[in-house]
């Protein structure tokens, strides 16, 4: 009672709505027989369950992300024995890791490795014996090759499989450093439906890398590229 004889309401413990239902400690507690949680919205039980669960969800995702970052850092600094030094040091290394680990599993991978020349190195079709003629089809459904050359030759063939039975032609191959073009390349479909590439490397052709487009002669649309490295 106040000095004037009036009753006064005590100061409230809080003046705002009660919103904090989170209880520290293990989510949901352990070993306690609990009453049924009610389903009504605005009920502290309902809100508390959601709040604690979402908080735990964020905590776990963040744990996972931190762990992933730590692993990535270890891998990139070469401190782990899992993948070896420089494990994430570039696409070529990654591709080589993949090739090593998966070649045993399926021949599928062979094709992948053999047909991503821009990133993972050329599809090494054939190094022609000196003064000889070589014929090879490579390891997959790539074209059959017929090469006449007195020098070592490396052929890189970038052509989507679905075009490998189409009627195609090859432009004269040009070099960035030489005036002379490598001409007279024949591309034809053999009786077995396989593409056959005939290549004659003149003795007078300077060594270097020669590149040209493979195209559909009926429409002029490019279908791939052919690169020849002459030693």
């Amino acid at each position: 009672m106040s000095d004037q004889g009036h009753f006064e309401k005590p100061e409230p413990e809080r003046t705002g709505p009660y919103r904090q239902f989170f209880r520290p400690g293990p989510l949901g507690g352990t070993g306690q027989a609990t009453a049924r949680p009610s389903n009504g919205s605005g009920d502290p039980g309902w809100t508390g369950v959601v709040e604690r669960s979402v908080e735990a969800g964020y905590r776990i995702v963040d744990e996972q992300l931190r762990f992933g970052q730590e692993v990535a850092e270890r891998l990139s600094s070469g401190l782990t024995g899992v993948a070896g030094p420089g494990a994430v040091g570039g696409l070529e290394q990654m591709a080589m890791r993949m090739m090593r680990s998966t070649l045993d599993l399926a021949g599928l991978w062979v094709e992948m490795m053999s047909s991503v020349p821009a990133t993972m190195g050329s599809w090494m079709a054939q190094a022609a014996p000196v003064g000889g003629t070589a014929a090879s089809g490579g390891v997959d459904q790539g074209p059959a090759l017929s090469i006449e050359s007195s020098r070592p030759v490396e052929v890189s063939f970038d052509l989507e499989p679905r075009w490998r039975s189409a009627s195609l032609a090859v432009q004269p191959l040009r070099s960035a450093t030489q005036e002379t073009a490598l001409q007279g390349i024949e591309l034809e479909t053999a009786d077995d439906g396989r593409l056959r590439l005939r290549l004659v490397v003149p003795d007078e052709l300077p060594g270097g890398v020669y590149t040209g487009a493979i195209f559909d002669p009926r429409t002029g649309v490019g279908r791939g590229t052919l690169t020849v490295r002459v030693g």
Partner: protein
Amino acid sequence: MRAAAVRESAAPPSGGAAPGPALVREVLEEYGALTREALEGYLPSLEPKRYLYDLLADYPRRGGKMMRPSICIAAGRAFGARLDEVVGSAAAIELLHNALLIHDDIEDLSMERRGKPALHVLHGVPIALNVGDALSLMSLRPLIENRWSIGPRLALAILEETDRMARESAEGQAIELGWIRDNVVDLDDADYFRMILKKTCWLAAIHPARVGAIIGSRGALGTDRFVRFGFFLGASFQIHDDVLNLTGDHGRYGKEIAGDLWEGKRTLILIHLLRSATREERARVRRVLAPTRERRDGDDVAWLAERVEHYDAVGYARQVAHGFAGAALHEFDRELGRLPESRDKGFLRALATWMFERTR
């Protein structure tokens, strides 16, 4: 490719577009059909058909929800990818998902899948295992062929993502199988969330969204992107699936009702029951879960179901799932809020609430 049949992604969702749940159903049907068409191209019709190739097509043709490939395509298109750039990856995700289902059904001793007997029930464990192996290897083919549609750099980035997802999924499955084998019951909700982050969320949501977004953004996607969104979406999906397992209509759900209790799965529902039960009840739950599925008693499983109902463990799980859906919406705004409105963006947003409408 039926790209012409696909609606223009850039069209805003307003102005006659289907509302959330209807939009989800519409997009799932449309992208699901495109994925199935692409997927069929990777299922050869060779010999031995009876023991392998016919069986490869069994689960994919039973008609799943196609949520995973649809997330991949929608995320890709929302970020600006063309359909032909993402549909191969979507097909790979669905192929791998079906391969893992075959193995999961064996590991969990599940009897049904998509309304029919599980593959190992029909053909025996050795043949089903081999079909699962073959299907998982075949899921690599579209990823290899990605080099023609998105180039070798992005194709390798998607392979890296697939490697990451496969490890996470295997770890999650291992954790769950280990809990069952060792009859682990001292678990809390955080343990469960950690397990489903790996077992479910990576393949169900994080991976498809990341793959699509990587293709659409031409590789300009941080390593953390979509992990939180995918976790909350995938976890909400998994918890609702656990609820359906106990409360669903068998004809629609397509799996054995209460199969999780028979299999001793450590679901959020079971963990809540263990937490709420008396000391004596908890001891009995532990005894009931100790034997393998074949030796579990039907009366014991009925008692578990009754205790689940008594402690409203399903209601508890529903609340958590709804909360996670809300968190997924929050993360959606963080991840995709700045992208222009599109039908695909609307689909991804609406997925969070569609989860609770589904009955299978």
